[in-house]
């Protein structure tokens, strides 16, 4: 009889354990997946942290965390992830009572893009691993892989030509807010530029020198047509890198820029369009925008995104078209759009370079990528 009572007690204890885990397994249990950095450049490595907290007095011998990530981010160990359309990662943790575990996973940024992790699954087991419990935790973490800069030697060719065009037609205006230094007064200097304090100190007339601003704006037109074919993918990525590197250089040279593309911005779903960006401080913003632009098939032709010039007051803007499209039709359309002005077309290519007639008003630069 006693043996049966003992068996009953043991069975009850087991049931109590099962009941406790059924009711309390997810109390104080949380899983967080977060990118450690906000952005990195292509081919660099970054880290992702998984933080699991078990804030209760029940140990969790096995807690599995799984989440999906874009396959353009590759985990360095590559062992706990399976890659199909997306990369599926699963990690196992063992948590004691009131414990927090932080695991850092290194990954490589294979290609540019904008990445989010919205959800992570938690799969936990009870004390004797006899039952499994599932839930999903909302996550909110994002990461940018910025386009890789084009080597200076390569980008200097189009940059110099663009700057040449810019400088040849520039109108310089003094910027009264940007102080550059002092010089001796010379006949003809406006009275308002005389620095009276410095003059009193030195005993001779001194005038302020101001930084100048370039009135001209460069509008970069980026064609993102084509996806899925290896050649197209490579050339489109090269086009993004070229456009991004050019814009960065132009910004640091004090040139105001605008960007238009037929490729949609992954955040808004609309074609990328930046009216005016200026100042070297906008460089990161611009690179992030270029990280978000996507290549697709059957996009609206880039010609439809050429802005209206006449009557807009921006007839002097310099247009730079970056497209892998080598067709004469596009060159002609671009040439007729530029009209009497000057423009630059950059064509990234690999192996194949179609001979074609070069329009007079468009400076064509071929870039072997």
């Amino acid at each position: 009889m006693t043996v049966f009572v003992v068996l009953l007690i043991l069975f009850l204890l087991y049931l109590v354990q099962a009941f406790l885990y059924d009711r309390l397994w997810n109390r104080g249990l949380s899983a967080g997946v977060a990118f450690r950095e906000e952005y990195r450049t292509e081919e660099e490595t970054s880290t992702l942290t998984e933080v699991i907290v078990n804030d209760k007095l029940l140990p969790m011998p096995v807690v599995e965390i799984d989440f999906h990530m874009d396959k353009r981010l590759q985990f360095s160990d590559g062992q706990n992830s399976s890659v199909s359309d997306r990369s599926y990662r699963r990690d196992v943790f063992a948590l004691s009572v009131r414990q927090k575990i932080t695991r850092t996973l290194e990954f490589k940024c294979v290609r540019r893009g904008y990445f989010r992790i919205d959800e992570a699954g938690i799969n936990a087991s009870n004390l004797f691993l006899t039952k499994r419990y599932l839930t999903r935790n909302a996550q909110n973490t994002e990461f940018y892989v910025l386009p890789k800069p084009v080597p200076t030697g390569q980008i200097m060719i189009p940059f110099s030509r663009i700057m040449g065009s810019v400088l040849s037609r520039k109108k310089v205006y003094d910027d009264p807010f940007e102080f550059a230094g002092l010089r001796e007064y010379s006949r003809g200097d406006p009275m308002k530029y005389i620095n009276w304090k410095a003059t009193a100190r030195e005993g001779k007339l001194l005038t302020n020198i101001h930084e100048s601003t370039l009135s001209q704006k460069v509008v970069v037109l980026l064609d993102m047509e084509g996806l899925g074919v290896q050649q197209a993918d490579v050339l489109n990525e090269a086009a993004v890198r070229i456009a991004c590197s050019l814009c960065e250089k132009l910004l640091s040279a004090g040139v105001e820029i605008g960007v238009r593309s037929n490729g949609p911005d992954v955040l808004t779903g609309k074609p990328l369009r930046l009216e005016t960006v200026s100042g070297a401080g906008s460089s990161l913003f611009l690179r992030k925008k270029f990280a978000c632009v996507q290549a697709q098939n059957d996009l609206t032709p880039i010609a439809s995104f050429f802005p209206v010039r006449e009557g807009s007051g921006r007839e002097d803007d310099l247009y730079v078209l970056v497209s892998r499209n080598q067709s004469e039709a596009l060159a002609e359309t671009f040439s007729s759009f530029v009209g009497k002005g000057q423009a630059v077309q950059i064509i990234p290519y690999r192996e194949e370079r179609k001979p074609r007639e070069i329009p007079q008003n468009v400076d064509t630069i071929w870039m072997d990528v």
Partner: protein
Amino acid sequence: MKKVYEWLDAGNGRVLLMRFLSRFHCALITAIAYAMVMNIIQGEGVELAVYCRGLLFFVPILLSFYAAKKLPALWQFLLASLMISGISWLLTGTVAGFIAGAVLCFFRGRSRLSEEKEESAFDVPHLAVLLVFLVPFLYSAGTGQTALQKLSVFSAALYLLLFLAYSGIGRVEEYLELNRGMHGLPVRRIVRTAGIAVAALVLLAGALLLPASVLSTGSFRVDFSRLNHMGAAAQPETVMEEQPSGFEIPEELLGEEREPWFQIPPFVSYLFYALAVGGIAALILYGIYQIFKNFRSSYTDNRDVVQFLGNQEEEERLEGERRHRKISALDFSPNAAIRRRYRKTILRGSKEKPEDWAAPAELEAGAGIADETLHQLYEKARYSLEGCTPEESRALKSRGSR
């Protein structure tokens, strides 16, 4: 140690322990069967030595397993089988032992020839096997063999413990085997947590079951002769005999009422004993937890940074809980009074039960209430650090009563 594991074809200590348990489960069955057979043959009370001799059948079981696994040629295995049968004869002291050894080797050989991947019944304990122990138990109950009955109960208890340990370790091992290729799998910590749980269960079960089975009187009886006389419709009568106590009360002290009308059943005292053991175990565990709490620190295990949640985190959590906790019925503070009034007003105005996640503005919109004072006081009571004053609570109350 690794070389030993390799030689024994066991990946680690857990597998080795499981292998030991799986051989021992067969030995337990053979031991009790051997004891019963000897009892039938000899027709007298079984001795513990006979039972222990039966347990020695563990050796041929183990040897036959490794013979089937390790010996490359069939003739070598046949030769080994002959030797194993001889050993089992020697160990058990009867020809039955030789036969049992031969049968065992036959099945092992058959599994080897058919290249079966699954482990045979010799190697896997199963809960249903507990029914096997019912045979000697019922036999002893029918024939009045106290020692055999005690042994059968003890063996069944031991088998149950063995089964618990085997299945517990097996489950952990199965999980680890399934995820063997996983990088950074915290094997040590999984084994530690789940292993301690299994060990605690087995120890607790052992502490409760083994004394009970050892101290059992073996006095359960079934009168089969009466069953024969009364015919098939009659039920067997069970007779429970009380264990003779250590000292006897003189008859004159008992008076005329020798048997009281009510006696506390023995299992009740055992229940109290179990509760006391459980309580003490819980106290010890709590004490260990308290000791370790003071020594807890962060450490790094492979790629994992393991941190214990300190008092600061606990206070933050409790503060969070306090903020979201429902108002206690015993809370008569101004904050609670205002929150209660707000709740009542909202519930009165709402057609359906408001959602838990709704903000005060949403609740009020849902209930069609536009009371700015109540709104502000509620937000102050719910979210502000200083909370509401008794005057504010009274003002709201008096406003409501007007």
